[in-house]
């Protein structure tokens, strides 16, 4: 079966096989959107194995690379409307690493993963000053701010960022999720709403928030 073969090839991180199967599927008349969804199932499986500790960082990076190759083969870019999971969403998702921290592997993996599952992400990059993060928050939308850090010394800047959101009256419009080297204690210190979510929980959390705000807007 074509579907299972593609999922398996993504899961086993065999990029050449994925691309070969995609071309074969296109020749058989598969719809490109359907193929993206099939590839996404493979990416989800890689994410689950990473969360279980059976796959490693390089495997995750590789699955992101495969997804990007697939998007090229199928002539999509990440913001193509056809592959966006919530085209009507008014929720803005932002990612950044806190000031003083340039370690962005975790951030990039999550950004790639969420994009691969159809979410639109604004990536603010690394070493982001609280002012720059606060400037990027959309006061007319709900925001999900994902701040990541590897260094303990970045906890202070994360806290300052949340404090600045409070000062500017943006805190209620922003769900703050911290990731990387964090814990429940760091969450309390920083004043965040969530901490240390695995990739699939992060996806579920984002989509729940998007759905809540979509249904509120419809009222």
């Amino acid at each position, binding site marked *: 079966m074509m579907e299972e073969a593609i999922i398996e090839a993504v899961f086993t*991180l065999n*990029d050449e096989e994925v691309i070969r199967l995609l071309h074969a599927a296109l020749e058989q008349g598969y719809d490109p959107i359907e193929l993206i969804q099939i590839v996404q199932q493979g990416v989800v499986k890689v994410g689950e194995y990473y969360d279980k*500790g059976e796959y490693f960082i*390089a495997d995750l*990076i*590789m699955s992101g*690379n495969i997804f990007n190759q697939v998007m090229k083969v199928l002539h999509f870019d990440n913001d193509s409307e056809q592959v966006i999971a919530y085209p009507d969403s008014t929720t803005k998702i932002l990612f950044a690493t806190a000031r003083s921290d340039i370690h962005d592997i975790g951030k990039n993996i999550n950004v790639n993963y969420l994009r691969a599952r159809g979410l639109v992400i604004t990536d603010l990059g690394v070493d982001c000053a609280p002012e720059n993060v606060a400037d990027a928050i959309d006061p007319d939308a709900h925001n999900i701010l994902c701040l990541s850090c590897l260094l*303990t*010394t970045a906890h202070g800047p994360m806290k300052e960022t949340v404090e600045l959101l409070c000062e500017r009256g943006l805190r209620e419009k922003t769900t703050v999720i911290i990731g990387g080297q964090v*814990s429940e204690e760091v969450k309390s210190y920083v004043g965040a709403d969530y901490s240390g979510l695995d990739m699939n929980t992060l996806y579920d959390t984002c989509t729940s928030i998007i759905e809540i705000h979509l249904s509120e807007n419809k009222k």
Partner: protein
Amino acid sequence: MKPPVTVIACQMLRDEINHVFAKHGLSFSVVWLESTLHDVPEKLHQKVKEEVSRITGGGDILLAMTLCGNALLGIGSRTSRLVLPKFDDCINMFLAPDKIETGSYYHTLSWLASPEALHKQKDKYVEQYGAENAEAIMETLLAHYRNFVLLDTGVHELLDYIDDGQSAASKLGLEFKTVKGNTAVLEGLITGEWNEDFYIIEPGKCLTMNDVKRTVPG
């Protein structure tokens, strides 16, 4: 007679710790922890907790490691006093803050020689995913690094490692540099000179975020 001191140490610091023992004529019992535990702070936390709970004689426990991605938060013993260097990671422990450059990837000489060193990981990725994909993985891993810095803690002969360091840096596409560090903090830990660079966690207490936030040097 005072109960014996135990050191719980990261394998990666073996040469430095043995150097301090030799220099000061000391020899405590050491529990060596695998250096790969560092990659998963939860596992490191669990392992340190386990090892601390095995030591019940009441002697001091010297933790020859650092906060290591918060892995040491919540660590404490009911019966022993714990002492831990007050640093974010080993690089900070060996180098003065003004010598640490953002965008530099530091390797101690022991780390350079270990199978987990990044340039050796790259060989594994080439084997697993092919040269082009391995290159892309490394680009992601090293996106914001410019320099490959060999950190000389003073316990090895630096000259013996220069060729390997240069070849590792070139394999990773980074500029090769060296920097001189020292083992003063480890010496303080082992010789009992516990100044403001150390957490002292009394029996029945554990290391909390409040301790860390008050004290981690910049």
